[in-house]
C-alpha cells in the first residue's frame, strides 16, 4: 500500500469510527484484558450474549483492553444510538441483566453500577468517566487507546491517527527522527532512564550490514503489568513505535521478547502483525519507501534476569540467559554481534505520539530532567488499584491518595521499582516521581511498579520476599550475587523468625554493599536495595523482631500465634472444616481447641470465623 492508499483507508476508518455513535445498532464494550478476564469478564460477556439472544435484541459486542481502573472490573460500556458510551463498573454476570434491561427495555440510563460516560461534556446527570477521581489527575498519552478501541481492529487504530507518526518519519531523515526524540527528552521507560536518542545514535553510527531492534516486553518485575496492559489494549501503538525506532536506527529486523506468561498479549501482537502485513506496513519497502523491516516474536521462558539487555540477547540466541560484561554495549555489538537496540515496550509505545505531536508538546509534560509521562501499576493495599499514567514530577502523595484513594489501614510504605527498587516511608510522600529524586532516596523509577503497603504488612517480610525473589532469579554468574543474596535471605529469615541478633543487621548492611559493588549486571547490583532501604527507613520494625521477638504487623509466621477465645466461640465447627491440617477440634456447641503444633497459620479458620455470621469472631492472631 502506498501512503495515499493508507490515507484513504484511514479516512474510511475514521468515518466508520464516527458512525459508531450514530449507529442504529448499539455497541457493548467489555473490558477483556487479562485483568478483566480474571475478574470474570468472560462470564459477563456470556451473560450479555444470552440476554441479547433471549430478547432477540441486536447489538455489537466488542472486547477491549484494560482502561486502567482494574478495581472497577469487570467493566462494561454501553453505547446506544445517538448517545455517548456509558461505562458500568463491577459488572458480574448477574449484574448484566439489570443494566441492559434499563437500556433496551425501559429506554433509560440505568444508575445501577454506573461509572461514567465517555463524552466531552455533562450528559443527563451522568458524570464523565475520565472525571472519576482515579482518572482525573492522569495524562493519558501511551494509554490513550487502551480500553477504548478494539485492539483487534486495525481500522480503529487508524481512525485515531494510527501510523501517522510512522508516516511522518518516512518524510524525515533518520537524524531528524533522532533529533526529535532528543528534544522530547524521552528516557528509557524500562527503569534505568538512559536517553533513548543517545542509544539510537550510537547504534546508527556503527558500520554494519545489519542492525537489530528488540522490544523488551519481558516484564518480569513481580507486581508490574504496564507492558501487558499496553500490548493487550493497543498492540499497534507498540508496533508503530517499533517501525519508528527501526527506521531511526536503520534496522532490518525487529524482535519482540515477551513473557510466555502473557498469552493474550502474544495473541494480540500476532493478529496485529498480520494486519500490518496485509496493508504493507511490515516487510519489504514499507508504504513504497526504501525502508524494509520485519518483526518476529520470541517468547521468554521464565527468567527474570532476561530483562537485562545482554541476558535477553543470550536468550534469543538460544543460550542460558546470563548477562555478560559491557562494553561492548549492545548498541555496538549485540545480537549475533551486530549493533542492537533494546527498547522497553512503553518507550516504543510513546514514540508515535512524540513524532505525531512534536517533541515540544511531549517535553511540555514532566520536569526539567524527566520529561513526559510514565505509566505505573498502582497496586497493593491502596483502595483504587490499576494502571495509571501521570506526568513525571507528580508527587507520591498525589499518586497514592488522589489517584489511589489512600489505604484502609494507616499507610506504611511504597515500593517503587520492584526487586531492584526501594521501600520509601511516609516522609517521602511529597517526593516528586522522577528518575533523580527516586534514585536519591535509594529507590529507582524502575519499569513502573508501585506497591503500596499499610500497617498490616511487615516490612521485614517484604524485604525477605524481594531478596528471596532475586536470590532465586540470580543467574549464578557472579559470586557476590549468587552467594551474597542467599546469605542475605538467611539473615532476613532469622530476623523474621525472631532468631537474629543486632550483629545480623550490620552484617546484612555490609553484605548488601558487597553484593551491590561486586555484581556485573543490574539484577545483582540492585538486589540489595529493598533490604537496604527498609533497614534505613524502618529500622524500628527490624528491632522489634530482633529485640522483642515480635512482628508489629502480625505477619511473620514464626512470631505469631493463632488462638481461640473460648468465651466468644459458638462451637459452630466451621473452622474445624476449614482447617486443612486438622489443627482445630472440639465437639459442636462447645469452644474449640486449636493445636498450635499442627497449625500452619494459613488464616482459613480466622477468615471463616470472621465472615461467617454464626461464628463468633473468636479466633485471634497475635504476635
Amino acid at each position: 500500500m502506498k501512503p495515499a492508499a493508507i490515507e484513504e483507508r484511514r479516512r474510511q476508518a475514521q468515518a466508520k469510527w464516527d458512525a459508531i455513535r450514530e449507529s442504529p445498532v448499539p455497541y457493548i464494550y467489555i473490558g477483556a484484558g487479562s485483568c478483566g478476564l480474571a475478574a470474570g469478564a468472560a462470564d459477563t460477556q456470556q451473560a450479555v450474549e444470552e440476554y441479547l439472544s433471549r430478547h432477540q435484541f441486536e447489538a455489537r459486542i466488542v472486547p477491549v483492553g484494560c482502561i486502567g481502573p482494574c478495581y472497577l472490573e469487570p467493566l462494561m460500556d454501553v453505547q446506544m444510538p445517538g448517545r455517548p458510551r456509558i461505562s458500568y463498573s463491577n459488572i458480574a454476570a448477574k449484574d448484566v441483566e439489570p443494566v441492559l434491561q434499563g437500556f433496551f427495555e425501559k429506554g433509560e440510563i440505568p444508575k445501577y453500577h454506573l461509572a461514567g460516560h465517555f463524552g466531552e461534556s455533562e450528559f443527563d446527570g451522568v458524570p464523565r468517566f475520565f472525571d472519576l477521581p482515579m482518572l482525573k489527575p492522569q495524562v493519558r498519552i501511551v494509554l490513550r487507546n487502551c480500553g477504548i478501541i478494539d485492539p483487534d481492529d486495525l481500522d480503529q487504530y487508524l481512525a485515531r491517527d494510527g501510523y501517522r507518526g510512522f508516516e511522518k518519519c518516512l518524510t524525515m531523515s533518520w537524524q531528524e527522527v533522532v533529533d526529535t526524540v532528543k528534544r522530547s527528552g524521552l528516557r528509557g521507560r524500562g527503569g534505568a532512564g538512559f536517553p533513548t536518542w543517545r542509544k539510537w545514535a550510537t547504534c546508527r553510527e556503527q558500520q554494519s550490514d545489519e542492525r537489530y531492534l528488540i522490544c523488551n516486553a519481558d516484564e518480569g518485575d513481580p507486581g508490574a503489568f504496564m507492558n501487558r496492559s499496553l500490548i493487550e489494549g493497543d498492540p499497534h501503538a507498540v508496533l508503530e513505535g517499533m517501525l519508528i525506532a527501526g527506521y531511526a536506527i536503520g534496522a532490518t529486523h525487529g524482535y519482540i521478547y515477551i513473557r510466555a506468561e502473557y498469552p493474550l498479549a502474544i495473541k494480540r501482537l500476532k493478529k496485529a502483525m498480520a494486519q500490518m502485513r496485509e496493508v504493507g506496513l511490515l516487510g519489504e519497502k514499507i508504504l513504497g519507501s526504501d525502508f524494509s523491516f520485519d518483526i518476529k516474536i520470541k517468547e521468554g521462558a521464565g527468567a527474570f534476569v532476561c530483562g537485562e539487555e545482554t541476558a535477553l540477547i543470550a536468550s534469543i540466541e538460544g543460550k542460558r540467559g546470563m548477562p555478560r560484561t559491557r562494553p561492548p554495549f549492545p548498541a555496538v555489538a549485540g545480537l549475533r554481534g551486530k549493533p542492537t537496540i533494546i527498547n522497553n515496550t512503553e518507550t516504543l509505545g510513546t514514540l508515535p505520539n512524540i513524532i505525531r505531536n512534536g517533541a515540544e508538546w511531549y517535553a511540555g509534560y514532566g520536569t526539567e530532567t524527566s520529561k513526559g509521562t510514565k505509566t505505573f501499576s498502582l497496586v497493593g493495599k491502596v483502595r483504587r488499584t490499576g494502571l495509571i499514567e501521570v506526568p513525571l514530577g507528580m508527587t507520591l502523595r498525589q499518586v497514592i491518595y488522589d489517584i489511589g484513594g489512600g489505604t484502609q489501614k494507616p499507610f506504611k510504605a511504597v515500593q517503587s521499582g520492584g526487586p531492584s527498587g526501594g521501600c520509601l516511608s511516609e516522609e517521602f510522600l511529597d517526593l516528586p516521581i522522577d528518575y533523580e529524586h527516586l534514585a536519591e532516596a535509594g529507590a529507582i523509577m524502575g519499569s513502573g511498579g508501585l506497591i503500596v503497603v499499610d500497617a498490616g504488612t511487615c516490612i521485614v517480610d517484604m524485604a525477605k520476599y524481594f531478596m528471596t525473589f532475586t536470590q532465586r532469579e540470580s543467574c549464578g554468574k557472579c559470586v557476590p550475587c549468587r552467594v551474597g543474596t542467599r546469605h542475605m535471605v538467611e539473615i532476613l529469615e532469622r530476623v523474621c523468625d525472631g532468631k537474629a541478633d543486632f550483629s545480623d543487621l550490620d552484617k546484612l548492611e555490609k553484605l548488601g554493599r558487597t553484593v551491590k559493588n561486586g555484581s556485573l549486571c543490574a539484577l545483582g547490583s540492585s538486589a540489595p536495595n529493598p533490604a537496604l532501604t527498609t533497614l534505613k527507613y524502618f529500622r524500628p520494625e527490624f528491632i522489634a523482631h530482633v529485640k522483642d521477638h515480635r512482628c508489629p504487623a502480625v505477619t511473620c509466621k514464626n512470631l505469631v500465634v493463632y488462638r481461640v477465645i473460648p468465651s466468644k466461640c459458638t462451637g459452630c465447627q466451621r473452622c474445624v472444616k476449614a482447617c486443612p491440617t486438622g489443627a482445630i477440634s472440639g465437639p459442636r456447641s462447645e469452644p474449640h481447641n486449636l493445636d498450635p503444633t499442627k497449625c500452619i497459620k494459613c488464616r482459613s479458620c480466622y477468615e471463616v470465623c470472621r465472615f461467617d455470621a454464626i461464628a463468633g469472631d473468636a479466633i485471634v492472631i497475635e504476635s
Partner: protein
Amino acid sequence: MISRDDISAIRHEFRGEREDLIPVLQRLQEQDGYLRPDAIRSISRWLKISENEIFGVATFYAQFRFHPPGEHHIKICLGTACHVRGGQEILAMTQARLNVKPGETTADGKYDLERVACLGCCALAPVVAFDDKFHSQMSVLKVQRLLEEGRSDQATDSR
C-alpha cells in the same frame, strides 16, 4: 503407534539453527506437556547441540518441566501484590489440602501445584490460576471452595 521420540512435526516448523533451541523446547513442551528425555536426544542430534547443553539451557528457565504434568494445573501467584495481599497463606493452605509442595503433582496425578512469580493481574491480587482460568481477589476460603468444586467436578466426571 507413533514412536515416542517423534519430533518430526516440530522439525518442519524450524530452520534447525542454534537460535531455534528455546522455541523448539517450548513447542515440544506444548506438544507433550513436558520435555521427554528421548525427544531431547532427538533434538540434540538434529540441532547438533549436546544433550548436556540442552539440559543446561532448559533448566535455566522456569518454564520447562521435566516430569509428566498432572491433569489440572494450579498456579498460585506470588508476585509482590499477591504476596502482600495473602498469597503466602493461600499457598500454605493449598499445599496442606493437596498434600504437595510447589513443583509437585498430587499422588493421584490430578493436580500440579506451582508457585509463579507474577501473572500480571496485580491490581486484582491475590490471583490463582486453575488450568488457564485466572481467579482474582482470592482468599484462602475462596480457594478452598474452588478446590472442593474441582473435586466434585471429578466426581461427576467419573460417574
